[in-house]
């Protein structure tokens, strides 16, 4: 069994773990309670039964009298009507201990005699027996031996018996009802436990949703509040995310500082060499150009490689494009270019780092503006998974054969225009790192069309 797998039996599922535990506990405690209650009620019934029999026996003892011939008789009838009804379920019997005379019996015994086991109790002591009744039903009998004052020397055995069914019927009824009640209770408790577990584990589902959003890039952190047991976990996670972002930002700043530190001396060297015409000056010019390309290339790579691994990135397209268009409008103010963002859904966002987005768009829009005669048009459309950014210019365009070559590092379509010739190769590298692509086509506007496809956030 794989402990980490979500479907790995009860160990793998919190829900099953909680449910099984609760189930065992509910069933166990209800069974114990049922057994205890039934037993208690049984004992109570038995005691009551015994007390009733004892009351009848006392009544019988009190009513016992002897007629002139010395035969036992009752001074008055006993109160319970069941004693008058044949096989009424309650019986009494008086007999001599030595069996010398026929026993005196209750009317309910009709023509039967209670067969008592031989016994020799002490006088007045109450004994209890189980015997068979007139119809073979089990009877509970209690007896007492008395020696009447009128007949000293004679011992009389007084017996009162009752059908045990009187005991078992209510007991059975009680047990049935108890079982029913406890069953309903158990079902209710189990249902409550299921609901409780479901409600209790709901934050986990929300947590999962939050994590998915972070992974997909539609959220930067898990902002929802969670129960106090889960919140520390969420806080830790958010902390890790923030640290990641911070490290990324620091790496970028350092890369930028490095660029600044290296490029300023490069600028000085290049400017100094530009005024000389010796072999050394030419060498310096060449090497400065190479160094420039290398620095740019590796900086771009390092930045992008760091960004692609960072989760939770989301960069809106519209403000990025608008910012770049402001730059272009200012920089190319004299040329009176028409820079148009023809269509861009407000919610369009790229799943990646904002600076990388600006890098890709900036290079493409800058290119288009450099070559355009009058107009550059940008269109953004999406299919849910990707955004397709189309940049059209009405410039001279690029012959099909040359379109692939401009993606090579250091190749420039126009050697006179300043720049390291890295633009398009960086765009392609970034786009590919993020799982997108860049294509150059002929534009319906007459010039070049650049199509940048980027993953949507």
């Amino acid at each position, binding site marked *: 069994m794989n402990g980490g797998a979500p479907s790995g039996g009860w160990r793998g599922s919190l829900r099953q773990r909680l449910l099984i535990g609760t189930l065992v506990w509910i069933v166990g405690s209800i069974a114990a309670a049922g057994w205890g209650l039934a037993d208690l009620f049984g004992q109570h019934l038995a005691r009551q039964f015994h007390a009733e029999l004892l009351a009848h026996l006392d009544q019988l003892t009190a009513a016992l009298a002897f007629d002139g011939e010395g035969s036992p008789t009752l001074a008055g009838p006993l109160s319970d009507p069941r004693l008058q009804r044949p096989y009424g379920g309650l019986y009494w019997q008086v007999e001599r201990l030595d069996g010398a005379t026929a026993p005196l019996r209750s009317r309910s015994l009709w023509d039967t005699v209670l067969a008592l086991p031989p016994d020799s109790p002490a006088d007045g002591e109450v004994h209890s027996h189980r015997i068979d009744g007139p119809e073979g039903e089990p009877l509970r009998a209690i007896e007492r031996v008395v020696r009447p004052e009128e007949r000293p020397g004679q011992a009389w055995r007084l017996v009162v018996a009752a059908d045990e069914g009187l005991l078992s019927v209510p007991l059975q009824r009680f047990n049935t009802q108890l079982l029913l009640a406890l069953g309903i209770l158990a079902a209710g408790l189990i249902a409550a436990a299921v609901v409780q577990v479901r409600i209790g584990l709901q934050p986990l589902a929300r947590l999962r949703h939050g994590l998915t959003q972070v992974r997909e890039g539609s959220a930067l952190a898990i902002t929802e509040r969670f129960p106090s047991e889960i919140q520390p976990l969420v806080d830790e996670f958010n902390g890790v995310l923030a640290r990641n972002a911070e490290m990324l930002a620091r790496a970028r700043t350092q890369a930028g500082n490095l660029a600044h530190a290296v490029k300023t001396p490069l600028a000085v060297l*290049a400017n100094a060499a530009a005024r000389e015409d010796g072999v050394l000056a030419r060498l310096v010019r060449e090497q400065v150009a190479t160094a420039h390309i290398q620095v740019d290339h590796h900086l771009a790579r390092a930045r992008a490689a760091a960004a692609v691994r960072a989760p939770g990135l989301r960069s809106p397209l519209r403000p990025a494009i608008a910012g770049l268009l402001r730059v272009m409008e200012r920089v190319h103010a004299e040329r009176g270019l028409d820079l148009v963002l023809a269509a861009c859904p407000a919610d369009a966002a790229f799943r990646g780092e904002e600076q990388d987005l600006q890098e890709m768009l900036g290079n493409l829009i800058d290119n288009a503006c450099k070559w355009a005669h009058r107009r550059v048009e940008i269109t953004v459309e999406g299919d849910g998974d990707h955004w397709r950014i189309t940049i059209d210019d009405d410039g001279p365009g690029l012959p099909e054969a040359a379109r692939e070559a401009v993606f090579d590092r250091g190749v420039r379509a126009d050697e006179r225009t300043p720049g390291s010739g890295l633009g398009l190769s960086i765009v392609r590298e970034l786009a590919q790192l993020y799982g997108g692509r860049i294509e150059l086509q002929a534009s319906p506007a007459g010039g070049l069309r650049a199509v940048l496809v980027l993953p949507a956030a």
Partner: protein
Amino acid sequence: MRLLVAEDEPTLAAQLREALAAAGHAVDVADNGRDALFLGEEEPYDAVVLDLGLPQMDGLSVLRRWRAAGHTMPVLILTARDAWHEKVAGIDAGADDYLTKPFHLEELLARVRALLRRAAGQASAELVCGPLVLDTRSARVSVDGRPLALTGHEFRVLAYLMHRPGRIVSRSELTEHIYAQDFDRDSNTIEVFIGRLRKKLPPGCIETVRGLGYRLVCPP
């Protein structure tokens, strides 16, 4: 034209100063953000070359402070990072153009020329006033096609006037725009330069407006 170069790397600053001076400008250099901020607020520069990575106060903050205080001189920012977000931030802070290090000095000069032209409302790189032609790219003046030999100060006075044809320019305005800050200024020398220019130019080109200053007159 009077320019400010804010660049902390001394060699690059010297190269910029030299190249811009050779193009006929009076150049001040600030090697940190605070000095740049102060100079930009106090002196009437015609354009500024501003490095973003300045010590004490970064270039973007300096630029924002200038713009917030209402200074509208054209600003060319220099950035080493070649990152678009920085260019966007620079333009949004009020820059007029940007240049990425390392750059060719010719490129920088061309951008500065374009900024000055744009600020003066001139579209062409050649300023024309009757028979007078000033090529801002080569910093040369010709009359009817014949090149004119001018000293640095004479050129600056004439260039300033030619960026503003027909406008009255006071003596003090001329002084502020043709001398660098550390130069020992004497507004009387302006009269000397004007006098020399009048001798070299066709008669009637530079008018004196009594009590106000000078005006360049371009015959139709």
